[in-house]
């Protein structure tokens, strides 16, 4: 395998892990713009554990995920008090804080960056991504998936149905952060050098875009979103300087045509369900407004 191809596939696998880290909070209705901060925590914890305690990556990377998850659990209670745009701003600030702390942490190199000794290759990273995808898919085949979507759709009714809205919001936030941490750790061990500047807001936004582009309603969405996002710029490489323009234009077109993402729940149900004409006309005829007030 050429170095270029391996590089692209490693990025694809890491981005898939990131996408699932972003998927969990988004599935619960949270716009988390601090994902890069959790990726940084994962990357630095794993690097530190393997550099200083000579832990094998197979142990250090899961521990890094746990560390990112614990930090998320601690900040979840105050951060999740905010909603909507304020939640986005609070998590954005959180990401900035993590970045600022790392820049000032001499023990991991500060602004100079931090070399990572233990190296992992594509097969290990691909396997890790497969494990993450499988676990998230299994999780969403349980009642957890239904409850998180219910919390996303209507918190008030979810609460009246006996769903502990707060617990599910915290769980989605923390699990998503843990997975993002694992993504950061995988990145660190392959590229052998990490610096705080890499884990900036544009990484967070990119992760969120993977999920929004792929679709937040199904477990397939993030996989597809990450794949399109990673591979499309590579395919457009031929057009040199214009590739980012072409890529951005493609994004806008996709978002205009599929505002709920490339894959939606309704679409999957149509594909795999018993094919049957849905009585849309009757629904329009009823024509009654539906209130979604909180």
């Amino acid at each position, binding site marked *: 395998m050429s170095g270029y191809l391996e590089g692209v596939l490693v990025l694809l696998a890491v981005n898939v892990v990131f996408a699932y880290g972003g998927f969990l909070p988004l599935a619960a209705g949270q716009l988390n713009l601090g994902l890069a901060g959790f990726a940084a925590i994962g990357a630095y914890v794993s690097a530190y554990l393997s550099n200083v305690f000579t832990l094998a990556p197979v142990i250090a990377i899961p521990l890094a995920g746990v560390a990112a998850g614990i930090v998320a659990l601690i900040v979840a209670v105050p951060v999740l008090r905010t909603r909507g745009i304020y939640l986005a701003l609070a998590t954005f600030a959180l990401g900035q804080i993590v970045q600022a702390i790392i820049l000032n942490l001499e023990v991991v190199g500060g602004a100079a960056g931090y070399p990572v000794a233990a190296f992992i290759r594509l097969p290990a990273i691909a396997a890790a991504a497969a494990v993450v995808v499988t676990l998230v898919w299994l999780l969403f085949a*349980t*009642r*957890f998936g239904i409850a998180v*979507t219910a919390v996303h*759709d209507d918190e*008030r*009714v979810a609460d*009246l149905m006996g769903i502990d809205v707060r617990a599910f919001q915290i769980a989605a936030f923390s699990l998503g952060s843990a997975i993002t941490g694992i993504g950061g750790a995988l990145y660190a061990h392959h590229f052998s050098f990490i610096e705080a500047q890499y884990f900036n807001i544009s990484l967070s936004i990119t992760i969120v875009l993977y999920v929004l582009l792929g679709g937040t309603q199904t477990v397939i969405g993030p996989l597809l979103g990450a794949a399109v996002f990673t591979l499309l710029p590579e395919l457009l490489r031929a057009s040199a300087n214009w590739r980012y323009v072409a890529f951005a234009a493609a994004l806008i077109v996709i978002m205009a045509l599929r505002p709920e993402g490339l894959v939606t729940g309704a679409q999957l149900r149509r594909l795999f369900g018993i094919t049957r004409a849905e009585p849309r006309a009757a629904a329009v005829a009823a024509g009654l407004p539906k209130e979604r*007030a909180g």
Partner: protein
Amino acid sequence: MSANEPILRLDSVSKHFGGLRVIESLTFAVRRGVRTALIGPNGAGKTTVFNLITGVFSVDAGRILLDGIDITDTPSRLRIGYGIARNFQNIRLMPHLSALENVMVGQHCRNRGVRGVLHPVNLVPRNRWREAARAALADAALIQYERSTVGNLPYGVQKRIELVRALMAQPRLLLLDEPAAGLNPAETETLQAQLEKVCIGGLTVLVVEHDMHFVGALCEDVIVLDFGRKIVEGSPEDIRHNPLVQEIYLGAPAAEPMERHSARSA
């Protein structure tokens, strides 16, 4: 607990929103196994009563007792576990879940804890909870919609799915907020048939409804609210002929409106 004890009792319950006294020292009881209607003009506070019973709002004064247990301060999330399930005046199904998954949301209160939540309901094809939800949909003649996106379904069908969802909690007390509102006569008839089937098991129902034919056909007790107070209660027949109720709905005789108005604002 004696069989005669009411399943639900509101004891001098009051609720104010700022200076607006929405519910004023309201006392009533719902008899076990009886279908009771809560009626009154717009703004009488009927939906607020439901929101107080289910804990959406906390009461400012008074007590709410379910089967003799004081649930006044019980968090809203836990009340469905005590056996209170409801529908909503404006349908509130989860738009991103299929009809079947919406119904499965109703099972949540019977599946608390980590094991219940991590039960793989959508993994194996013949999962027992999934099959129970499908059976409930089939029972209500809605099984053909199980995979449908709820937002695309006719209004009447959505209302019936919401009813099935509430029933999945296996409630002792079912609160129905205007179940027939916005339905055409055929849909109302289907809903009525579904409700009668449900009530055969002796389920206690408290229903807010404007359609007096619907109330007369379904309910044995009627409570009339106006401006947050109980005006009268009795059988549908009594209520229909009650002069006070006629006044509330049709207006006072010509000479008295000013007097009535001033009596109220006092």
